[in-house]
């Protein structure tokens, strides 16, 4: 019998798509869950790194001799040599290993660095300054025009663009931006490495259990079979924890050298300075639109920095989602003395959204039109899922009561100094899976286990796997024992780009259905019926139409004999797969209040309507969206990396100084999952990134609607708002 790899219809599910607590929720809430930072093997030594105090310099010397003599210090070592160039503040220059935190701290303080200072540039917002400092790369870009030149007109592009602007009913020009932020993982990057008998166990805080073991092999001069990477729980990664990193492999080397387990987690300031930041983005945008607000021509130049060597926000997210038939876009990469950017939840999309969907809203403002109508009309310029956006907009508008609350930009009623406003934005993401493996074991006593070198970023991977297998075998979720978090298990996907749920759902459903086919065969032989006539439901494998005819799951498993049934799952997401798919839409609407006198912005209500194909676990899906909205509020109103303009020092690289929202800053959050049959039929699609994209633009648009003035650059802090209002007055 050929197995058909599909999901059951909505009305025939037992646990799939329900709202389930996380299977590891209690462990996480009670502290029983051990994160990498919690791993403290016997005889463990502590290691800490020293960051370079200068953002750009050449090493003259790093003297660790005094540090080596501190009582309790086992080793102090330079990580850079004379002549090496340091290109951002906090780059690791030395490491100290000792018995206690105090000894290590004293050791670090005793290290003497001598540096030759070099010119620093960190003023990423000022393109002219970057060009003057020779820190701006040559611009790239793309022009797309519907008309073609009739002859050899070399100036056709300029003339055509000029013509389109001239013919536009309205032209809007603006400056928009979003400052760099860090990943601010609550658990910093690092590991506890345990070298024993020629083998390494690395307890690494990682989003990539399957892919990091090999990175230790070279530095330790062993092969990957002697390495286990372990990560049961991770305290935040957001795209910054795919690699073992230099400090990870260094920790392993130190464990080998000292023949003791060593823990090396980055200090908070070094975490922020080294281990992940999201590129900033700044743009000059000019838009031409018809009198209904439909964009006819887009012309933008944006610049951004991904650090000294990192890339900037690429050109293809400008304009974002709404792409008119005629556009010109230019991008310039600026090099600053900051650490290389890392992928940050929905890489580049939040910036593209914040730099372009704000500009689109300014078209509505200039025409005195309702932003909702302008976004809706511009869906003609959306390549995919225009109908989904339209439906989601309708739902979101109803949930936020858009029609009743709407007023033209800056024309709302004021209560003293308080004005309110509405704003919206739309987004897109992939979220398809990648080929991943797993092993499913069904024991003769009825026990079910699964094994995959996946990881749980906190969002519920274990629970998703348990639900998929429970649905497949007709068992309760609690009956499935999920094993993830070790590189010795069958290779699975890293967790980034929202690929995990589609990947593990494919592999486990695939393997689960294969295993079930074998179970059905055994039962069919026993009951002398056709295997095709059987279903697994309610803890039994039984006849589809006659529930009394069948065996309990346990009885069925006893037919396996002495050994467990082991089945490999091989999920291979493809356009043909009915289990998973890729590509989502999503709409968010924000209602804010702004105090015009203080520039303080408060969230009143925030609505997210999100499609994700087929929902596996409604509760964790909603949680993902809540979390993304809060993270988005952080970027819109609070977070920014603040650098000293002269020295390049990262000034707010501490939790006390790096502003984040608290519960009192969140307002009311409303989440609606859009899952009509047409979406459900697409199968599972990842959800991690999409809902974090729109908040910046939606909130900026709401603030603009309240004030009647565009505060172009995020985050919208009181300073940013007041400075903008003041400049406007002047």
């Amino acid at each position, binding site marked *: 019998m050929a197995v058909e790899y599909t999901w059951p219809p909505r009305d025939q599910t037992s646990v799939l798509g329900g709202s389930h607590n996380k299977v590891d929720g209690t462990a996480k809430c009670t502290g029983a869950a051990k994160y990498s930072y919690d791993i403290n093997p016997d005889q463990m030594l502590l290691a800490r790194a020293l960051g370079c105090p200068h953002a750009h310099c050449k090493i003259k010397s790093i003297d660790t001799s005094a540090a080596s003599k501190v009582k309790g210090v086992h080793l102090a070592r330079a990580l850079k040599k004379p002549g090496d160039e340091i290109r951002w503040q906090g780059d690791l220059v030395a490491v100290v290993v000792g018995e206690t*935190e*105090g000894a290590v*701290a*004293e050791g670090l*303080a005793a290290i003497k660095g001598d540096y030759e200072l070099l010119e620093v540039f960190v003023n990423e917002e000022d393109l002219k300054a970057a060009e003057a400092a020779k820190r701006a790369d040559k611009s790239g870009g793309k022009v797309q025009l519907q008309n073609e030149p009739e002859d050899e007109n070399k100036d056709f592009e300029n003339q055509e663009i000029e013509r389109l602007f001239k013919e536009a009913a309205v032209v809007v020009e603006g400056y928009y931006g979003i400052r760099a932020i860090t990943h601010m993982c609550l658990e910093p990057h690092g590991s506890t490495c345990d070298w024993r008998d020629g083998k390494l166990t690395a307890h690494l805080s990682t989003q990539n259990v399957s892919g990091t073991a090999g990175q230790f092999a070279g530095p330790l001069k062993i092969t990957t079979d002697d390495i286990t990477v372990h990560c049961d729980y991770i305290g935040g990664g957001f795209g910054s924890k795919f690699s073992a990193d230099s400090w990870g492999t260094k920790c392993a080397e130190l464990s080998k050298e000292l023949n003791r387990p060593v823990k090396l987690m980055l200090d908070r300031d070094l975490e922020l300075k080294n281990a992940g930041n999201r590129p900033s983005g700044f743009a000059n945008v000019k838009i031409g639109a018809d009198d209904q607000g439909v964009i006819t021509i887009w012309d933008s130049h944006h610049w951004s920095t991904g650090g000294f060597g990192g890339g900037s926000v690429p050109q293809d997210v400008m304009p974002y989602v709404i792409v008119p038939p005629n556009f010109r876009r230019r991008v310039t990469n600026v090099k600053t003395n900051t650490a290389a950017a890392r992928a940050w939840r929905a890489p580049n999309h939040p910036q593209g959204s914040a730099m372009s969907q704000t500009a689109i809203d300014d078209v509505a403002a200039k025409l005195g039109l309702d932003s909702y109508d302008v976004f809706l009309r511009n869906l003609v310029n959306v390549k995919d899922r225009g109908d989904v956006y339209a439906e989601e907009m309708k739902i979101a508008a109803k949930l936020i009561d858009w029609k009743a609350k709407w007023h033209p930009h800056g024309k709302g009623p004021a209560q*003293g*100094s*308080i004005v309110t406003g509405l704003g919206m934005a739309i987004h897109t993401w992939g979220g398809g899976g990648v080929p991943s493996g797993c092993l499913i074991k069904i024991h003769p006593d009825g026990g079910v286990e699964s094994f995959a070198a996946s990881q749980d970023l906190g969002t519920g991977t274990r629970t998703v796997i348990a639900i998929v297998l429970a649905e497949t075998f007709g068992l309760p979720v609690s009956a499935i024992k999920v094993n993830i978090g070790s590189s010795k298990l069958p290779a699975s996907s890293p967790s980034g780009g929202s690929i995990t749920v589609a990947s593990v759902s494919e592999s486990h459903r695939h393997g689960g259905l294969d295993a079930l086919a074998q179970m059905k065969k055994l039962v069919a032989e026993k009951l002398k019926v056709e295997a095709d006539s059987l279903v697994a439901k309610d803890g039994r494998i039984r006849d589809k139409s006659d529930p009394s005819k069948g065996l309990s799951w346990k009885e069925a498993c006893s037919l396996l004999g002495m050994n467990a049934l082991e089945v490999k799952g091989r999920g291979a997401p493809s356009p043909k797969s009915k289990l998973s798919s890729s590509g989502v839409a999503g709409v968010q609407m924000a209602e804010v*209040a702004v*105090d015009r*006198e*203080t*520039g*303080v912005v*408060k969230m009143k209500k925030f609505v997210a309507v999100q499609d994700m194909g087929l929902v596996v676990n409604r509760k964790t899906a909603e949680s993902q969206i809540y979390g993304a909205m809060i993270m988005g509020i952080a970027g819109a*109103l*609070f977070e920014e990396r*603040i*650098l*000293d*303009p*002269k*020295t390049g*020092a990262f*000034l*707010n690289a*501490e939790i*006390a*100084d790096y*502003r*984040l*929202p*608290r*519960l*009192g*800053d969140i307002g009311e959050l409303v989440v609606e999952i859009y899952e009509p049959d047409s979406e459900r039929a697409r199968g599972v699609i990842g959800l991690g990134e999409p809902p974090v994209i729109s908040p910046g633009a939606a909130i900026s648009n709401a603030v603009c609607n309240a004030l009647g003035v565009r505060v172009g650059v995020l985050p919208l*802090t*009181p*300073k940013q708002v*007041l*400075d903008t209002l*003041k400049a406007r007055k002047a």
Partner: protein
Amino acid sequence: MKAFEYAAPRSEQEALEFLSADRGRTEVLAGGTDLLGLMKKLIVTPDRVVSLRQVGSLHTIDADSQGLRVGAMVTLEELLDHPASAQYPAVQQAIRSISSQQLQSQGTLGGELCQRPRCWYFRDGHGLLAESGTAIAEGDNRYHAIFGNSGPAKFVCPSRLAPALIALGARVRVIGPNAEDETVMPLEHLFRTPKHDQQREHSLAPDQIVAQILLPPVGERGNASYEVRHGAGPEYPLVAAAATIVAIGGVVSEARIVLGQVAPTPWISAEAAASIISLPVNEETAGAAGDAAVSVATPLSHNEYKVQLVRVAVKRALLLAAGLETGGF
């Protein structure tokens, strides 16, 4: 953190004996919410830490006709919950605004007044005067001083209670190694603008401690605090103002207005106070007091927005002290 000796004296006298006259050799531990962070970052590196936790005389609150006598080790939460503190809404509002259960229940009144500045250059090891003020003047000074900043000191006094307490006329009892060191002085004298790196931002000698805060009875004075905060968290406000007023026949006869987070010390705005005398408190006069307060402001390169925030904070603190609606959130 550098290794250190830990002393846990049981009396004021014993505590004083453990303290060194040399700056930096010893540090006083109250609630520890600031000191621990400073020690971990090696900003202060004492050889000995003297905990005041077991000094019983520093933990009491006494209320009588002379007002309130609050021990330096009284926690912010204990002060907030004490029935006698209800007459000082300015103090209660300031404590509530700290909005961190941990800071309220662990932080002490003495520690709140003696905490070190949050200036990020100071906290990054560049010294209190940020290498003579140049790092701040040329750097990112968005949270720095807009008053009293012409010298090298450009940090702001971080205390959130000092403006309210000073506006209320609080005095502070300071004790030292000798009996004659004991002094009771206006609280504002505890703070000073340091001129060189050997000076701290408090007038205490290294071997002196704050023992009690003495709050006079509130009498006829209306009083209030208003902080402009960026968010609901425990982060320090962008600016703050506290006001006390006596209004007779609808017009103000006495006023004291003290600003926080705007100068190296709590900033007593004589200009704001003078502007409201003989006038009724209303949106217009309170606004004018705000304007008067900022007439002497000297913002740095990145903190002009704080001038506007001071205007608003003064206006709203005055309106609140007069029992009127303040507007805002």
